[in-house]
């Protein structure tokens, strides 16, 4: 190692690494604001959806657990206590006047009271709920398979998505979510009215919550009031297919 020259070059190299890191950071922030760059990044979402759909059997089930795996306490997330007066009134009388509306591109519009939903064929599943933030909780869900409701209503051939309209608002904006027919017809996609053998509590979306087990938590709409069958998602609320998709640019396909 001959002293001076290599010492300087080392210093230059360290400086170069430092400058490079700074450049990377400010460059990334600027890129992050660019529409075309965000569109480019979004290609990965389409790639993930295509890859997962190609690699996964349509009916492949999410893992189901034994009762001893059930989490001690299932965290309540998103809206916990909807403040809307209409919803409060429904809680007061035990959802006696509540009914699930099914409309849009269906042969027969439905209004199904809670009692009737609970009489329908039901499915129990002990599954893992995965939040986009990274945590997980395991719970036992009981509910009517969504495909059963779809058979009752009869989807028109044009229908491609189901939109779930909810009773709660976040920051003044109504919550909603949507799924395609592949997930809608999946055997584990149920409209749950019980959690861990108890009537679904308000904190978890009473009286009815969507379970779509192969996707992240924000797809599992709580406080479901109405299911609308549609051909496309544009024109519905923000047009991206869900509350978080509209408000915070979350992926519509949340299988990853």
């Amino acid at each position, binding site marked *: 190692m001959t002293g001076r020259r290599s010492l300087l070059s080392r210093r230059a190299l360290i400086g170069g690494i430092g400058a490079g*890191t700074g450049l990377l950071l400010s460059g990334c922030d600027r890129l992050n604001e660019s529409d075309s760059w965000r569109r480019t990044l979004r290609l990965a979402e389409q790639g993930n959806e295509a890859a997962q759909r190609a690699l996964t059997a349509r009916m492949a089930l999410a893992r189901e657990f034994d009762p001893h795996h059930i989490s001690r306490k299932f965290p309540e997330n998103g809206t916990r206590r909807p403040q809307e007066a209409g919803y409060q009134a429904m809680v007061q009388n035990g959802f006696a006047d509540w009914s699930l509306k099914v409309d849009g591109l269906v042969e027969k519009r439905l209004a199904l009271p809670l009692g009737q939903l609970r009489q329908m064929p039901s499915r129990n599943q002990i599954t893992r709920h*995965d939040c*986009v933030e990274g945590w*997980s909780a395991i719970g036992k869900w009981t509910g009517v398979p969504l495909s059963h409701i779809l058979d009752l209503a009869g989807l028109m051939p044009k229908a491609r998505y189901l939109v779930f309209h909810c009773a709660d608002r976040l920051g003044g904006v109504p919550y909603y979510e949507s799924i395609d027919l592949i997930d809608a017809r999946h055997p584990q996609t149920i409209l749950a009215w019980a959690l861990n053998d108890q009537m679904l509590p308000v904190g978890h979306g009473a009286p009815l919550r969507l379970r779509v*087990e192969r996707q992240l938590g924000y797809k599992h709409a709580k406080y479901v009031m109405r299911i609308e069958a549609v051909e496309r998602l544009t024109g519905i609320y923000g047009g991206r297919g869900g509350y978080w998709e509209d408000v915070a640019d979350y992926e519509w396909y949340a299988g990853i």
Partner: protein
Amino acid sequence: MAMNGPVSEPPADPAPTTGHPRLTRLWHWANVIILPVMLMSGLTIFNAHPRLYWGHAGNLNDYAWFAVGSSPTQSYVRIGETRIPSTGWIGNWTDDRGRIQTWAFPSWATIPSRYDLAAGRRWHFFFAWLMAGGLAAYMIGSLANGHIRRRLHLSRTEWYPRSIWRDMRDHLSLSMRHRAELQHYNILQKFAYIGVIFLALPVMIATGLAMAPGMDASAPWLVDLFGGRQSARSVHFITAFSLLAFFLIHMAMLLVSRPLARLRTMVRGRPA
């Protein structure tokens, strides 16, 4: 003969006859962009829930083996039962406007620099495709062009404890006796490169996939391999920081052993 030059000035290297194949150089420089983006966007995602668990499930109501505790006045990193104060660095830091922030990792370490989970995920998953594609191309190409056999294969004598021990001593004393390593990697170097290419990066991809609820249905064995989704998340985090440690040692080794010659070799393929 008995040449008696000072130990610190060994004779110059013999001119290396082989450099780095084009595929190696291409992949190396692609990773200079891809891996920092993966780490920094990953830290954005981690900031959404800065706690790690073992097993299938884990949330605020469960025991976390790793957690960042933050408040507006102080913060700590807890590993097991050991609390390490981290005020000013992790969990409580000052942003460029002088405000105290309580996100776990500070803005200089994340992409984007302000907390945005959706954007962090988009960056992460886009570059994950590049990372996985690059690794696959490099593995296949380097097996085919003989690079792995020529440069990374461990001969039987290299496995002798004596030679491993000698190499460790050389590294610790920074004497770098094996000056011919522009042509021949020493054994610790081979361990490190093999570990990164065939262990750490594949584990990053596998644990990343194991966290996806969609993969839980299509490849439950992958989740089981790591002992559950939360275990996979923990392994993902540990392996990411192992790769960061590799990078820091990689830089240190570069700086103590003719950095410019090595940079030239990695750019042009040959040192001259």
